[in-house]
């Protein structure tokens, strides 16, 4: 079996890490002072620039053992406690109780959303109690919970410039006995964007060759990012349904993700009737995607795919000219931001459901819109708020504003009414003296 060059040329010592001198120095200092303070470190930054390599190189430099818990394993709370927990409290085979072991938690920003949501808590606990050094590795620093961030020393890794990547590529070529054009190497180094991709590209291009020319690189690989834009161009500007469809097949995206790309960019290209027709096709495609989910029949992806490519393509009445800068879908970001809003909405729906004896779903889709217009009058707003015992966030949601003095006053008035009503009923039932 052929070994991956990214593994074969993984730096053995910190001084072999290319770029990121500041981060490497910080990491080294952290390791040397570890023990006085048992804080864990977070190495964060874009993928493929040597975070994991730095962790292993560090362990090698310090003569520490390593254990890695990566995302391919199921990182449930139980597993983290059992494996990392044991590792964090135990010495080593060679060094006994004073032997050090580096615990590497790769993709630490990816723990939430894993099967067990206790994962983050387990890691925070682990970091607090550890007797061994821990390194967390993540892409986004702010994707991690605040508690986790506060418990760790952050060390940022930045993009490695292509002029630092090129010498490494040259060294690899030399080592593998490959004759490579300077221009070709330069192109590989600049195009890839990060060290790992550059090495992978080089290996892929060098497969079965002893000499690499610039032409080999130009027709080479790494086009997924570009081609998603190409496929959209084919859909929005082209007129050949077959080409659009086949182009979408070559993408490394499934229809469920790809539909968001089209959804995002359709209004940038089509206007007026074309836009309406385009969305008509897209919504039909979405119906198929829903059926795929419900029936677990992935064969229906075929129709979804055809509707979103050929269908959208055929929706335009004339050719669209001019350059449009396509954007990646914002839906996931919005969904994340909308999460707190959804929580509020659902809690209103629950309250309505209780009051009106309807399901939360019905309340959400059928009743909340009415409530929104009812609440526009302040007097009825107070009445409804009192009736459903809404809190300030919920009132603000229905009025489509943020919590301000108006909301405050509605809420106060409503609460007063609730108290009065309660007192009244106490009196009615002989509560008064």
């Amino acid at each position, binding site marked *: *079996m052929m070994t991956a060059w990214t593994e074969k040329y993984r730096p053995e010592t910190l001084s072999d890490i290319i770029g990121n001198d500041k981060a490497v120095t910080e990491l080294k200092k952290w390791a040397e002072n570890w023990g006085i303070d048992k804080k864990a470190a977070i190495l964060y930054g874009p993928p493929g620039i040597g975070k994991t390599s730095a962790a292993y190189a560090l362990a090698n430099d310090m003569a520490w*053992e390593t*254990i890695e818990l990566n995302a391919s394993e199921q990182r449930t709370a139980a597993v983290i406690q*059992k*494996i*990392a*927990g*044991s*590792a964090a*409290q*135990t*010495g*080593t*085979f*060679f060094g*006994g*109780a*004073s*032997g050090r*072991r580096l615990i590497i938690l790769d993709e630490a920003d990816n723990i939430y959303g894993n099967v067990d949501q206790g994962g983050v808590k387990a890691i925070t606990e682990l970091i607090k109690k550890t*007797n*061994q050094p821990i390194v967390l590795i993540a892409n986004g620093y702010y994707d991690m919970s605040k508690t986790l961030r506060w418990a760790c020393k952050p060390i940022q890794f930045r993009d490695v410039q292509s002029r630092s990547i090129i010498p490494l590529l040259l060294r690899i070529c030399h080592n593998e006995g490959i004759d490579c054009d300077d221009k070709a190497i330069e192109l590989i180094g600049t195009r890839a964007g990060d060290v790992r991709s550059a090495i992978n590209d080089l290996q892929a291009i060098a497969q079965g060759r002893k000499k690499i020319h610039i032409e080999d690189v130009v027709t080479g690989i790494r086009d997924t990012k570009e081609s998603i834009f190409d496929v959209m161009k084919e859909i929005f500007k082209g007129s050949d349904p077959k080409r659009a469809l086949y182009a979408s097949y070559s993408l490394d995206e499934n229809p469920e993700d790809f539909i968001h790309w089209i959804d995002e960019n359709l209004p940038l290209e089509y206007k007026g009737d074309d836009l309406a027709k385009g969305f008509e096709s897209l919504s039909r495609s979405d119906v198929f995607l829903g059926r795929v989910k419900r029936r677990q029949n992935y064969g229906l992806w075929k129709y979804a795919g055809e509707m979103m490519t050929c269908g959208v393509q055929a929706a335009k009445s004339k050719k669209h000219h001019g350059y449009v800068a396509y954007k990646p879908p914002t839906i996931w970001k919005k969904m994340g931001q909308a999460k707190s809003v959804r929580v509020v909405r659902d809690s209103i729906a629950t309250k309505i459901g209780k009051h009106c004896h309807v399901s939360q779903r019905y309340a959400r889709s059928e009743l909340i819109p009415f409530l929104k217009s009812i609440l526009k009058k302040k007097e009825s707003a107070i009445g409804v708020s009192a009736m459903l015992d809404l809190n300030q966030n919920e009132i603000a949601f229905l009025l489509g504003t943020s919590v301000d003095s108006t909301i405050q006053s509605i809420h106060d008035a409503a609460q007063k009414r609730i108290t009065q009503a309660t007192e009244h009923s106490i009196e009615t039932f002989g509560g008064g003296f």
Partner: protein
Amino acid sequence: MVFRAVIDADILKDSIEAISTLVDEAKFKLGPEGISLMAVDPANVAMVSFELSSNAFDSYESTEGEIGLDLVKLVNVLGMAKSSDKVGLELNEKTHKLSISMGGLSYTLSLLDLSSIRKEPKVPTLDLPVKATLNGNDLRKAVKAAETVSDHIILGVDGDVLFMEAKGDTDQVRLGLTRDELIDLTASGPARSLFSLDYLSDMSKSLKKVNEITIHLGKDYPIKINFTIANGHGKVGYLLAPRIES
């Protein structure tokens, strides 16, 4: 590669369970002389070494080679066997499967890809000052008693006494075994180390039926536990790294 063998269900069960307490998947080395294995647990704190000589089998035939087995599945399969059963094992190299037959049942177990199994650990050469031989059940008892008060245990030697001590937040257990109560004790230096009971408890499960075990101890150093299985035709060795006292 050829591997064909028949063995008592009991012996095979004991052997596999001695390994499966630490690892779920393992790589066995097969050879004309017998089978062997070396594995480390996922946390990298406990190691097991295992040897079973061809003499432990009723019949045995094998060439050199390696196979990867899912021990969880294997233990389940062997759970079906009666202790008086004979288990037949045969490797089918083409289909990459191990067929297991016993008392009319026949299973085929898919082998694991060797590259997917954790690498064999590097084995340290440790010169530990204390060597004690004792009844397996004594250690098991100490571990069980310790578990009632704490999650870790101190093992050490004080003069002529091998002691095991566990301290909880409020309670404490101590078991002292004098030279007379042990089968043998030699100490050329001080020994006192702290261990996780989770692991010791897993390891001591296999000690139930073992009359004689040898343990090696040092000061804040790993513990080595060695014993024989299969009427002396097999050897099991555990190595457990010490806990860090905080």
